[in-house]
């Protein structure tokens, strides 16, 4: 009986090992709720819009040169 109860106790002890499960993964939630992530998005969008305008400008200049020929 002692052996069986010891075995049951040891088998059940795995429950304690799952202590990690409750751990929360850190995400930038507060950063987002404070609203400042929008600043980063705005900066990235500005950069990309600038780059795309630049690409369009190159495209237009090329078209002009191609037409001259």
């Amino acid at each position, binding site marked *: 009986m002692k052996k069986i109860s010891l075995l049951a106790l040891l088998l059940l002890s795995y429950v304690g090992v799952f202590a990690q499960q409750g751990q929360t993964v850190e995400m930038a939630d507060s950063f987002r709720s404070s609203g400042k992530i929008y600043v980063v998005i705005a900066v990235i969008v500005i950069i990309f819009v600038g780059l795309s305008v630049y*690409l369009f400008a190159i*495209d237009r200049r*090329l078209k002009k040169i191609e037409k001259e020929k």
Partner: protein
Amino acid sequence: MKFIYQTWWKVLTVLVILYTLIAGFLFEVPTLPILHETIRNVYFHVPMWMAMFTVFTISVIYSIKYLNTGKEEYDLIVVECVNTGMFFYVLGLITGMMWAKYTWGEFWSNDPKQNSAAVAFLLYCAYAVLRNSIDEEQKRAKISAIYNIFAFPVMVVLIMVLPRMTDSLHPGNGGNPAFGKLDMDNSMRVVLYPAFIAWSALAVWIASLRYRIRLIEYKKNEIN
């Protein structure tokens, strides 16, 4: 080929990328240990590789077309596609290293994925070296076209196949599950797939610009 002179798809590309930039930061992502918010890198790091694959694939198609027809223009397309692909290759490698630093612990941990990506990069560097070492135009175009056709499948094997057969830290390899069913949910696909298409289109756009410049140079040299 006419479409490279049109504007509508370029506008669309820019708009879709803008969408992925905004949505990529704001939309919900799965909360996972180690990755945390860096999971959003999926929206920016992986599309670099997709863009690279797209232009490299186009370069192989035009290499075959060149060998079939001997049209010089096709050779120019091949070169500029490879050049643009190399650019996105470097972006993919560097963003990957950056991401690795904060999730794997080191910029370069000699992971099979990283190592074979570096080897495949050298493969394409060899393309540039081979091209520049031949003076005669037709010979250069022919030899580099053949090299390009063989380099592409080797690159695919190095990047996509070999790392998957061993243990690698990179998702989708070895005993390491991919960003598949387990850790990527459908909310991510809403951003990821448009990003794949849009960044590929952007790479095609840049390659087409470079091709048009090279075409003008080529015609100028022809007259002289």
